[in-house]
């Protein structure tokens, strides 16, 4: 889109706000509307906007393909791993009541901590899947 300088500048200006809003939805989802899935989609939208305006290779410098591929699995592992940590602490799978702790009072406790970790896993998986689908579409068109 190098024929649209205003779009380039405004996109550069908007992307931080979209990323920040995605983080807000991710970490504020326990208190207001939102959660991991929505946050993941918003975060991916910001990266895709960057790719649409500045080109696929620029987006792949920001979020490299190999990293995104790994992150698809990392999110799911984080989710299931929370369940296994609960089992290791003596509860059942995904029983967040075992996550009660008194290490640091600022850190969320028990159920809240479990929800936090699980939503983070969902967010990571959704972000990377959406970005990866975009890469798949865009990269295909470039080769043909």
């Amino acid at each position, binding site marked *: 889109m190098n024929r649209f300088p205003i779009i380039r500048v405004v996109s550069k200006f908007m992307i931080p706000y979209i990323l920040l809003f995605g983080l807000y*939805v991710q970490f504020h*989802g*326990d*208190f*207001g*509307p*939102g*959660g*991991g*899935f*929505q946050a993941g*989609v*918003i975060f*991916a*939208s910001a990266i*895709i906007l960057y790719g*649409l305006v500045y080109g696929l290779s620029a987006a*792949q410098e920001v979020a490299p*393909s*190999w990293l995104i*591929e790994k992150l*698809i*699995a990392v*999110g*799911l592992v984080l*989710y*299931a791993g929370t*369940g296994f940590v609960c089992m290791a602490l003596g509860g059942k*799978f*995904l029983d*967040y009541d075992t996550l009660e702790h008194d290490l640091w009072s600022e850190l*969320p*406790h*028990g*159920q*809240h901590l*479990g*929800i936090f970790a*699980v*939503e983070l*896993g*969902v967010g990571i*998986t*959704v972000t*990377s*899947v*959406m970005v*990866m*689908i*975009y*890469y*798949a*579409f*865009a*990269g*295909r*068109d*470039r*080769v043909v």
Partner: protein
Amino acid sequence: MEIIVIPILALLAVTAVTIARIRNLWAAVMFTGIYSFLSASWMLILDAPDVAFTEAAVGAGIATILMLATLSLVPKNKHKGGGIQNSDFETKRLRGRSVVGSLIVALGTGAMLVYGTLDMPHFGDSHAPIQEYPRPSFVERSQGDMHGLPNVVTAVLASYRGYDTLGETAVIFTAGIAVLLILRRNTDDNDRDANLETTSSNGGGSKPIAVATTSKNSEEAAS
């Protein structure tokens, strides 16, 4: 509120009919965007802000981009100019051939689905399992269980129904892997030329094999 609700529902119906009837696929993608806007407003009025949030995040941004990307991968004459008569002809041919069969299949599926709902409790029945089971309900329990987290939807999704959400995340994971397997050509492995030569069945093949197959092909062509 009725003064807003009825026009929104009418606009939703008009948009849905337009999406089904319009022949220009680019315009249809834009109308799905309009449908997303309207349904998000409608879900907000129904007091379901989480669903409205999902619709807003997915419908206006990602869904539009992915549908446009799909259209751009389809051969050009399908959605621009001269191809329209061709596709019209296609639908006419299909309509003449199999309208009876598809009608029977559709009606049969519909009848089976209606038959399946006969055993379900009546709509709004106060003795239905969905009203009986969580007693006290999640809304009353979640304040104590969740250290005072106000959003019950998040509590139900991530904690009370944690298994379901794990399954959903696995579905997203699987869908992403499937899209990768179908769509991606390994452009980032520096063997783009090799990839262009070989067929997609051995897309992961290394360079020497690709060269060997191409040389064989050229030999066959020469002989």
